[in-house]
């Protein structure tokens, strides 16, 4: 394992994007950064720009309007980038699957490395998903 990969395991920076979810997963993501769970212990930070990110965290089914944006974000990210689909919607479109404006789950459009199901997933589940993802590096 190279040094850069080892370091990546110790400091994955997360860029969070909502592609049409109900905002509940986003609240749970913020929960992970609170004193109770404190993801910064593992070097995980939320960053504001995709250029700084190592993990692209997507919540929500992909809506028609969001598709070009999420594809663009994936192309803009510096490689290696890991994509995590969060919540029932991120994994399989959830309750929105028959919506007129939904064009399929995330993994139909960009490669996804980890799925964290739940509606919304608990912070513990999110942490477990991230740990499993880091284990595959």
């Amino acid at each position, binding site marked *: 394992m190279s040094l*850069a990969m080892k370091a990546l395991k110790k400091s994955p920076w997360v860029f969070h994007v909502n592609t049409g979810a109900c905002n509940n997963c986003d609240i749970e993501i913020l929960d992970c950064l609170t004193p109770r769970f*404190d993801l910064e212990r593992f070097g995980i930070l939320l960053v504001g*720009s995709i250029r700084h990110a190592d993990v692209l965290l997507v919540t929500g089914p992909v809506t028609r309007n969001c598709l070009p944006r999420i594809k663009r974000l994936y192309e803009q990210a510096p*490689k290696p980038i890991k994509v995590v689909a969060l919540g029932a919607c991120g994994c399989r479109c959830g309750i929105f699957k028959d919506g007129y404006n939904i064009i399929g789950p995330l993994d139909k459009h960009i490669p996804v490395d980890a799925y964290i199901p739940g509606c919304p997933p608990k912070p513990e589940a999110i942490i477990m998903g991230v740990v499993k993802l880091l284990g595959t590096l």
Partner: protein
Amino acid sequence: MHTAKYIFNYLVFPGFVFTAVVGLLTTWVDRKVTARIQWRVGPPWYQPFADVAKLLGKEIIIPAGARRTGFFLMPIVGLSAATLASTILWLVNLHPGTSFVGDTIVLLYIMTIPAIAMIIGGSASSNPLGILGASREMKLLFAYELPLVIAVMTSVYKAGSFSLQSILAHQAQEGIMLGSFSGVISFIVMLMCAQAKLTFVPFDIPEAETELAGGTHIEYSGGALAVVKLTKAIMFFVMPIFIITLFWGGISFSGWRILTSILKYVAIVVIFVLVKNTNPRVRIDQAVRFFWGPMFILSIAAMILAVLGH
């Protein structure tokens, strides 16, 4: 022989390697203290090193429409300027003989370069948020430089010379600058200006994580971002040392004075972090008003007190 010695000084000790390591450790202190204030655990000590190592291994992206030269040259210019400032300061503190006439002025100039580099880098990135950050950084630079220079001049006036060596010698003979009224006032002004120079909350207006998403360095990725982070870490190391040299008797590695030196340094760093964690961000007009109003008046008052002999 001299050239080799200076190159060693610049690259290894007390220049790049030493400063980068201690600067990164300082950013860890910053993050850990912040975490403890917020009742969290905080990252382990090697966190900043892991961040930099990771960033060096990542892809560097040039945004379409960015000017390559400005975009890539500027972080490197900023880093070398910050390293140079650190080298001059440490050499003067460790071997007073290496001081030269007017090195205070040279230092003031060199410590402005990282900010200017970020302005040019941000404008070259062709990102609207980066350009906005650059414009704010420029306004902030104009705001804090005025009280900063006057506060430095108080110390220079009392020592009667522009060279850091005589400022240190003056403090060794007649007590530290902090022992006088004018010294205390300019010390406070310096702390505030340093907070803005390091773009920490409440003066992180050019970066504004929640608003500009990184501002001037929004488009930097991979190794270029690592250089930007290193520059910030080194400036975080240089500013407290500069303040200690001017007002608090300098740094020394001889005997048990090494302990007091480290204590002084950590005290100033913790003041920075506490101010950072207990204040909200101000708007750019509020920042300019703050520096050109109260801070300017305070620094002028300190100067008048120094002339009157207090």
